[in-house]
């Protein structure tokens, strides 16, 4: 089921323009090119799935938007305002607006503090209410994620993994943010628990009109939660489309390889997987990016041009962007994204 999204007149919330994040290595002049020219837009109320394998740069992209890293180049615009700096230089009010739910609730909740103390931190930092009002708000937050209110006296280790992640979600929502980054929020959990968390996230998104940047390696999950999906490979987005379009008509060979690799549980799903490609090779190190298209060493359809020239992002159909030489010829418009 796709979630209904309310379109507001001025619906742009976040825009990322040609974002780059390089990390220095021990060798001088050699960089880890974790994020290497990423652009996308996020509308209010949207759920954008940023999908990729480890080393694709999806998490670095998210953390740079969050301000954990300073961008090397490019721009991050939030509600039209340039926020391309690190956390230290961001105004406090902005930190209220952008929040995150981390991957593993086992490590994202301080084991020496009670749930109440943990939820109280963002409230105290942003001076929300009096002490008593904050206590009210903590109880409210727990109710919001359908946890018993007396959980505020418990320590994280005393509750289950799924419940911990609910607490992490409540913490992210404590300051009424407009953008929430979800960094693989269910990949450390069992599927039966994942289902509960995802349902809760989707319910909150609808009710509180939240916008999600959903980082994930799981395309099956994205099929069910995202309004749009961007597939990342080696620091770049290689394909981006609305969810139904991407899954019905995956165009980039890497997207096809990803889809074909997913183990599924029914014949109906089996039928949707691309058949003409099988997974080979491994993602290269972002220190040693191959010339031309980053995917060409693993691509069964590579041509001579692929190792020579980097393909540009093209809009092959309305709202469906692909970065691949194979799809370059004969496509009208040659429209580069943004």
């Amino acid at each position, binding site marked *: 089921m796709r979630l209904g999204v309310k379109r507001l007149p001025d619906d742009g919330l976040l825009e990322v323009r040609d974002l780059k994040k390089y990390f220095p290595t021990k060798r001088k002049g050699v960089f880890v090119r974790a994020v290497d020219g990423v652009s996308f837009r996020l509308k209010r109320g949207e759920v954008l799935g940023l999908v990729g394998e480890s080393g694709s740069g999806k998490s670095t992209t998210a953390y740079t938007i969050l301000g*954990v890293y300073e961008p090397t180049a490019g721009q991050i615009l939030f509600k039209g305002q340039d926020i391309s700096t690190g956390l230290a230089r961001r105004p406090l009010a902005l930190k209220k607006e952008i929040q995150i739910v981390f991957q*593993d609730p086992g490590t994202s909740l301080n084991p020496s503090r009670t749930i109440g103390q943990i939820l109280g931190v963002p409230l105290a930092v942003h001076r929300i209410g009096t002490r008593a009002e904050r206590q009210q708000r903590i109880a409210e937050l727990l109710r919001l994620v359908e946890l018993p209110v007396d959980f505020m006296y418990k320590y994280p280790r005393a509750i289950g993994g799924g419940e911990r992640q609910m607490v992490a979600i409540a913490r992210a929502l404590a300051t009424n943010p407009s953008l929430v980054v979800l960094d693989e929020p269910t990949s450390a959990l069992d599927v039966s628990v994942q289902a509960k968390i995802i349902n809760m996230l989707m319910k909150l998104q609808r009710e509180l009109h939240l916008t999600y940047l959903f980082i994930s390696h799981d395309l099956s999950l994205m099929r069910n939660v995202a309004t749009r999906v961007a597939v990342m490979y080696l620091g770049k987005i290689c394909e981006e489309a609305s969810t139904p379009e991407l899954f019905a008509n995956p165009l980039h060979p890497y997207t096809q390889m990803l889809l074909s690799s997913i183990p599924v549980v029914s014949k109906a799903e089996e039928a949707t997987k691309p058949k003409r490609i099988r997974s080979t090779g491994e993602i290269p190190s972002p220190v040693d990016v191959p010339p031309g298209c980053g995917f060409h060493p693993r691509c069964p359809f590579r041509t001579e041009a692929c190792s020579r020239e980097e393909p540009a992002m093209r809009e092959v159909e309305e709202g469906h962007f692909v970065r691949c030489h194979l799809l370059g010829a004969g496509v009208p418009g040659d429209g580069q994204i943004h």
Partner: protein
Amino acid sequence: MADSAKWRERLGRAWYKFSRNRLSVVGLVLVVGIILLALLAPVVVPYPEHAGAFVDYANANLPPSRTYLFGTDVFGRDIFSRTIFAFRGALIMAIGVLVTVVPLGSFLGLVAGYFKGTRLEAFIMRITDVFLALPPLILALAICAMLRPTLFNSMMAVCVSWWPWYTRLVYGMARSVRSEFYVLAAEVAGASKAHILFREILPNCMAPIFTKMALDVGWVILVGAGLSFVGLGEQPPTPALGTMVSDGAKYLPHLWWNSVFPAIAIMVMVLSFNLLGDGIRDMLAREEA
């Protein structure tokens, strides 16, 4: 109701982990005994007046007997009474040193660990390294030699050589805790440095600090005894274990009880605190999943 049950549960679990090693229990019993003896010294000791400037040449140099459990020294003082009184100085030394050194060293380590990669870190840690390069006993000796020999001054000297161990320990912990996601979560929420240092990071460094403290009591006593052995601690006539060993050493081997019993007392103290420390370490260790 529920709270007291929970506490009983927690205490029960802690005791279970602590007592799985029988030696920890032995250590605990000995430590409690030592502390009680030191506190109640004037009451439990047969000749409390012997702990001062007391002379009884008629009963000098007597071997251990019913009346004088550990024998008497050259002034005719009961060595047992003096040994028990000497526990006081040893414990004051250990407590004084740790109460000073633990907060100070931990704070520096915490700051250095949190600000890793900065000049502040480099500054704190290089100074720490310099102090760590010098053996504590030698450094304390050198400092003591410059000051008037009193218990307080020897404590100061040990403090100077002891804080870097805590800085190192907490530094290592803080460095790793710093990169935990819950610290990042606090930063993303906009929490202050003080909050992150003292509320998020420090509580997660406490277990190793407590363990090291328990183990250190013994070592500080040993260093203190070392200082008083060369005459740089508590001054006569107040009894100090180290002084008693060194004074008695002159009369070895025939008046062996003069130094052997205080020496055994040092050994027992150090051993008891180390056994207790091991138990505390087991108790604070996170359960394996």
